């Protein structure tokens, strides 16, 4: 699976797609493949604050839990309710199945994230 060029990525394997001042956040194909079948997503609520590099929730498979780290600081404007009943969407279409949407406090933070090429190089090294 390719990594969308207009997304930005973290070293903890989250992606963020920004339109205007809203960032849509999910986890990458690499992350979902490492986790295996996802059974549950622990997400924050609308109105909660998230902080760059700080955990905002977790993703669970049968035998493991993975913390989710926010790429940016901001306020949660939406949470993907579909993931409650169908967390497997993350396995099937990881770059579309978003977890939260965030109103960015500081768009400048995007500059410290990896672009698609840098992220692909990063995961190539990890493997």
């Amino acid at each position, binding site marked *: 699976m390719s990594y969308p060029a207009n997304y930005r990525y973290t070293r903890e394997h989250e992606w963020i797609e920004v339109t205007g001042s809203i960032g849509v956040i999910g986890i990458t194909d690499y992350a979902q493949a490492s986790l295996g079948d996802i*059974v*549950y997503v622990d997400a924050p609520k609308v109105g909660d604050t998230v902080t760059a590099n700080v955990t905002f929730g977790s993703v*669970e*498979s*049968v*035998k*493991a*839990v993975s913390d989710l780290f926010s790429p940016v600081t901001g306020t949660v404007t939406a949470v993907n309710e579909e993931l409650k009943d169908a967390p497997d969407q993350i396995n099937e279409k990881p770059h579309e199945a978003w977890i939260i949407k965030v109103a960015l406090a500081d768009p400048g933070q995007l500059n410290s994230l990896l672009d698609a090429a840098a992220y692909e190089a990063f995961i190539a090294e990890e493997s």
Partner: protein
Amino acid sequence: MRYLPKSPAEREKMLAEIGAASIDDLFAVIPAEDRMNRDLDVPRAHAESEIIDYFRAAGRKNATNYASFLGAGCYRHYRPVIIDSLIQRGEFLTSYTPYQAEITQGTLQAIFEFQTMIAELTGMDVANASMYDGSTGAAEAVMMAVRVTGRHKAVVAATVHPEYREVLVTYTKHQGLPETLVSYDRETGRIDLSSLEAAVTEETAAVLVQSPNFFGVIEDIPAIAEIVHAKGALLIVSIAEAVSLGVVRPPVEADIVSMEAQSFGVALSYGGPFCGVIAAKEKYVRQMPGRLVGQTVDGNGNRGFVLTLSTREQHIRREKATSNICTNQALVALMATIFLSVYGKEGIRELAEHNLAKANYAAQTLSAQPGAKLRFTGAPSFHEFVLQTEEAPAQWTQRLLDNKIVGGIDLSRWYPELQNCTLWCATEVITRKNIDAAADVLAATPAEA
């Protein structure tokens, strides 16, 4: 040594194959200064007959021919014979935790049945596979409520078993969880509702009550729930006498129920092992501690059972786990499951009614003796009651013992304000003769003005 399946020759052979000159080589990794250079100072090896003699002698010293009116969180009920016949099968007794589901379907299905029965009895949606006991279960339930609500205060009824309350303090004292104790109505023995209302705030995570409470009195759970929920706190009902659920309405308004299931076919055994269990409303299941068994299918579509929602637990979450619990009380829970199967839907009700009848007769008979009266009135109770006497319990306790009767326990030990008050329990195993004999001894007590 007869538990060791090796002959000396085999040991030699194995050492040779390993390439060790002697067994000492294999312990050389322990520095000499850390190794023992003498035998352990423990009793010499006993023949099997000697072991049995030793414990029989200990049992005789403990005396078995006393009628006992003790309750207070640990209850003597008849244990159907098939409980031990079945749980002593090696496949149950010597089996491991069912992590390998394909070869432990027996344990897993039995736990699923246990979970179902507990949910049915308590009126909750889900129940776990057991906790150590009722006291630690109550403490874990409070910590669960803290996780669910995000609040950090607890309100606890003084009518919760005193030792349960001590355990709660131990568990929570390093978690920044202050507790407020709410006292009881001096007439009825129930929790004082106006004090409760004053104590519960928007910062309260959990309110812990026990029903039937330590005095044997059944609480007004709907009224308590209203007060608790009005402030957004969770109601935890602790049940120390599981048999009560045969005839007492389940606390359906509770958010979490923590129960001690010892009454369901588990021997007293001087206080343990027992069988705690936590049950709760479905929405809290991911914050529940302890193991959970879930139903699923195998590759051929056949029904099977597995441990599930394991990501709550210590082996995955480690310091962020819902609890540190690993080993639970699985075999004891199996005893409870068999007990509940034997009594079944009708039997558990009939058993509870027998308990009610015995206690009712005991309460009436004992309180009719000169100088004695029931301390609490005006609220229903199950099979325990508090007797107040004019004479101090110490005076007639020995007289009862001389008549081979262990009477109720002196409450002033935990409640200094309850002087000359003793807590009595009458289950289905207590006989009318026992009760009448106890009454006679009390009647013989000179009732000095």
